[in-house]
């Protein structure tokens, strides 16, 4: 039997997803056993033209991590889509926009001005900003276009499977590798993670009374290691987040931040989290209620930390 062909690509991401693939340890040898890798920019020296030369549909699986924030990433997403039988959105950024999509609170103009002009360590008296085309004596230089709006992978191309997480945990990656190796992939559109909310898996002690008189932030006190974070007045994304991460943060005594995205049936993770957190506030007095709610700083960044691109509103008003 011919070996399978894999492509692994990174777009607007930090590289953590690529490292997560290596985190499957000796299982990586099984991957090498069943598959040839045709593109993996972080680890192997293939060029884009090598991918362009492949026949359409000849790559069995493409693991695509990172959001789409510039034209190079968009071009590669479309190219890899054409070459691949199955496209996998790998990690929170590809699935929901992730941390990079928090850039949707701004736009190109403001980001450029901040980065190339206003930061304390920048001296740019001639206001030189990156341009897509620059003419120099040696010829024409081109750079990818930086978009105003960051998109998740499925907003750019059709996607078969979603593996959430920041980054996806090794056991889910192994599950996917095994499924590919045995040809037992789930139906297209599937999210490769359990179909329940993180709270269903959480081992912390919970009481019926979930009301709080004050929201606090993790740096303000050492949280009780056994008790539900919500009951301690800490914003925890567990009620609005899919399970499957192995409660990595919870076990380190840090509340969930929501990197597994919404559970099934929830279209907008941030709205659901907002609803859940506001329901904890216990007061019948408008002034006191406003004070409790005011304890949640930056609701947009907190509730859409990993999902701004996929949110109902998508970005701030331009």
């Amino acid at each position, binding site marked *: 039997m011919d070996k399978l062909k894999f492509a692994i690509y990174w777009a607007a991401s930090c590289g953590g997803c690529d490292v997560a693939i290596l985190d499957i340890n000796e299982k990586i040898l099984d991957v090498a056993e069943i598959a040839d890798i045709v593109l993996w920019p972080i680890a192997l020296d293939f060029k884009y033209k090598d991918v362009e030369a492949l026949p359409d549909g000849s790559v069995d699986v493409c693991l695509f991590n990172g959001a789409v924030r510039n034209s190079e990433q968009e071009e590669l997403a479309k190219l890899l889509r054409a070459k691949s039988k199955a496209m996998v959105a790998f990690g929170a950024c590809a699935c929901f926009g992730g941390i990079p999509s928090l850039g949707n*609170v701004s736009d190109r103009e403001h980001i450029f001005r901040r980065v190339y002009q206003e930061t304390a360590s920048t001296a740019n008296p001639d206001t030189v900003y990156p341009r897509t085309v620059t003419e120099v004596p040696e010829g024409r230089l081109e750079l990818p276009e930086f978009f105003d*709006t960051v*998109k998740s992978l*499925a*907003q*750019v*191309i*059709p*996607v*078969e499977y979603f593996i959430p997480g920041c980054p996806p945990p090794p056991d889910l990656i192994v599950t996917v590798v095994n499924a590919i190796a045995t040809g037992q992939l789930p139906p*297209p*559109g599937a999210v490769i993670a359990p179909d329940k909310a993180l709270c269903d898996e959480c081992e912390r002690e919970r009481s019926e009374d979930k009301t709080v008189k004050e929201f606090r932030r993790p740096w303000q006190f050492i949280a009780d290691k056994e008790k539900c974070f919500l009951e301690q007045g800490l914003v925890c994304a567990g009620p609005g987040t899919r399970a499957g991460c192995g409660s990595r943060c919870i076990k380190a005594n840090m509340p969930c931040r929501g990197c597994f995205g919404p559970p099934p049936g929830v*279209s*907008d993770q*941030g*709205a*659901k989290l*907002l*609803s859940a*957190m*506001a*329901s904890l*506030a216990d*007061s*019948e007095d*408008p002034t006191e*209620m*406003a004070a*409790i*709610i*005011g304890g*949640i700083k*930056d*609701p*947009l*960044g907190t*509730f859409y930390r990993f999902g701004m691109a996929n*949110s*109902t*509103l*998508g*970005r*701030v*008003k*331009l």
Partner: protein
Amino acid sequence: MNEEYEPTIIGFLCRWCSYLGADLAGTSRMHYPANLIPIRVMCSGRVDPTFVMRALADGADGVLIAGCHPGDCHYQCGNYRAAGRYSLLCDMLEQFGVEKERVRLEWISAAEGEKFASVVTEMTNDIRRLGPLKWNGNGAKADSPALEE
């Protein structure tokens, strides 16, 4: 501002108080702008923030949530839940760049037809001044391409 512009406002009205208030405004032949599209919900506490954002993303220029006065909730505390969510939602919508006049929470009892009419009039005028929201016109939300069969 264009004189012709008529805003679309979605109204989530509690079944026990505000919807009856709207009914009273109608049966009393009160005059108010026809810009509000009423949606009857069981309780203002049923109004998920998702509803509000979906309405704004899908073309509404404003959203009114109306429920029973504090202490009058048919389900004891639904309107207090609504108040908490509304407060946090307002903070978040401000971050999204949605003007605060566009989303409003009001307590309107079954006997307050007049209040319903004046709230709708005031809100319609406020949003007329602001102009259309045209959220999708921002290219804010990309439609996901579908998988081919």
